[in-house]
């Protein structure tokens, strides 16, 4: 059924902002700028765009259309899956194009993740807020009163179980932090460029919650990114090699709005989504040439690798060893530095990097000759999303 969507649409335009702590521009300005540049990257004008998928909060379709000049929007929707939203939004964009409802769809995200989440002396707060919606209802009543206010604390409710059950050591999780930091050294836009990390740095970093140390956690960042999708047919007349949307899916743990009463504590959104996405794409996880994995926390990456089926449950600690996830290894992971070392753009930077890789425009981080790659998203209380992307031949 869903395989009808495979290969029918493509990413044709990409753009990302700088990744900073304390942006001098507002979130809407950042979003308008990356949107304008992604549209130009596709060789299009704003008036060619008739589908818009904005982030959940911060800025609206109406503002984007009015500021950029999109006189006729035929499709707009917002995905409410926290950090899983951008990658899940690709599915919605592909569907709307394949169904003939929109021709060219802009998916964009921007936020003040450094400046607005908690008070900062060096950053100015804004009114523009994330719309967490109903997710917060459970957290407000049953987690936050206990001082469990951040994702690190919420996710530790299952990450602690994961490390205990599979005997995952800090030196295992460190492989992910170190790989992302090494890859960030090749990226001009990475917040942590010029700040390499050693295993000792990692092991000495301060404890946060559950199994998490500071260097297991992603970077609070102000940033924005945008991509444009259109039909594969039209994409072949555009400036860049099309990057085909071969498969994708979203998945939700059950119940999605509460962690502790799930019958299977370690079965998260991506466990549901990944098999569907690979089936749609008609490829196997082991066919991937690179992995752009949503890395809010190192241990979450390990659980995602297992959810993808690229290694078995509990197998990620071996999978990440011996340079396997470094550039030059079999499965280079987060070749841009990821949320851990480039910056936190809700995984939209992963989509942008995957597209750059498959265009063969990734510079020093290029995975030579890559044809297939996977991007994952992860958010709220364990929602998951995935896109399997391929270079058009």
């Amino acid at each position, binding site marked *: 059924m869903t395989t009808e969507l495979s290969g029918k649409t493509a990413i044709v335009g990409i753009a990302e902002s700088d990744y900073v702590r304390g942006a001098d521009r507002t979130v809407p300005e950042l979003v308008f700028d990356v949107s304008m540049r992604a549209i130009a990257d596709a060789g299009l004008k704003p008036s060619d765009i008739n589908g818009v998928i904005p982030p959940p909060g911060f800025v609206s379709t109406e503002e984007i259309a009015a500021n950029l000049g999109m006189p006729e929007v035929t499709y707009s929707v917002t995905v409410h899956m926290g950090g899983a939203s951008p990658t899940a939004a690709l599915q919605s964009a592909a569907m709307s194009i394949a169904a003939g409802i929109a021709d060219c769809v802009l998916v964009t995200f921007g936020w003040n993740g450094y400046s607005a*989440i*908690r008070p900062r002396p060096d950053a100015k707060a804004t009114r523009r807020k994330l719309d967490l919606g109903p997710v917060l*209802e*459970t957290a*407000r*009543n*049953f*987690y*936050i*009163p*206990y*001082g*469990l*206010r*951040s994702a690190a*604390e919420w996710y*530790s*409710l299952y990450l*602690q*179980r994961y490390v205990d059950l599979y005997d995952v050591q800090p030196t295992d999780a460190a492989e992910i932090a170190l790989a992302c930091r090494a890859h960030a050294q090749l990226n001009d836009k990475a917040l942590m460029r010029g700040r390499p990390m050693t295993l000792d740095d990692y092991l000495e970093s*301060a*404890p*946060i*919650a*559950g199994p998490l140390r*500071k260097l297991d956690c992603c970077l609070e960042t102000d940033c924005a990114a945008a991509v444009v999708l259109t039909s594969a047919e039209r994409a072949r007349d555009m400036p860049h090699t099309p990057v085909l949307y071969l498969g994708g899916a979203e998945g939700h743990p059950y*119940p999605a709005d*509460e962690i*502790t*009463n799930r019958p299977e*504590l370690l079965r998260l959104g991506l466990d549901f989504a990944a098999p569907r996405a690979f089936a749609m794409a008609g490829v196997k996880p082991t066919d991937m040439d690179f992995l752009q994995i949503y890395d809010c926390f190192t241990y979450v990456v390990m659980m995602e690798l297992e959810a993808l089926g690229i290694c078995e449950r509990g197998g990620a600690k071996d999978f990440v060893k011996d340079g396997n996830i470094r550039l030059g290894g079999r499965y280079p992971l987060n070749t841009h530095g990821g949320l851990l070392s480039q910056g936190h753009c809700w995984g939209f930077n992963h989509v942008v990097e995957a597209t750059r890789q498959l265009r063969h425009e990734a510079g020093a981080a290029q995975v030579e000759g890559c044809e297939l790659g996977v991007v994952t998203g992860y958010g709220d209380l364990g929602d998951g999303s995935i896109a399997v992307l391929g270079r058009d031949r």
Partner: protein
Amino acid sequence: MAGSPRKYVPETEGLNQEFFLRAAGGTLHLQRCDECGTYRHPPRYYCQHCFSGAWHWEPSAGLGRVASWVTTHFTIDRGWVDDLPYTTIVVELEEGPRLLGAMRNLSVEQLELGMKVKVVGETKRDDFVFFWVEPQ
């Protein structure tokens, strides 16, 4: 501690508020399905097992076992800074549902999965009860 920011107490509504109002009366109550007898938490409008919308509140002694716990060493919650490090315990109640509460009269060194504990409520406002987890 004088001058410290207060701990967060939520504005409650709907079924969650009913849950807290019951607990504020002095006894923890859990939702139980009228059709199949399954207990549930957090409060829901329909039974996840038989989909019945008929249910009632049933008193609970708050007895259960440790299902998991998390120790927080760094917090962005200013109301909890003075309590660092603090440990939050997930209790699997004898009725089945799991409930989260703050560790009291226990140390992390003593904690073991499956150890017997009890949940004790502290009424913070007539429509919100904070739960402590103590040894039985």
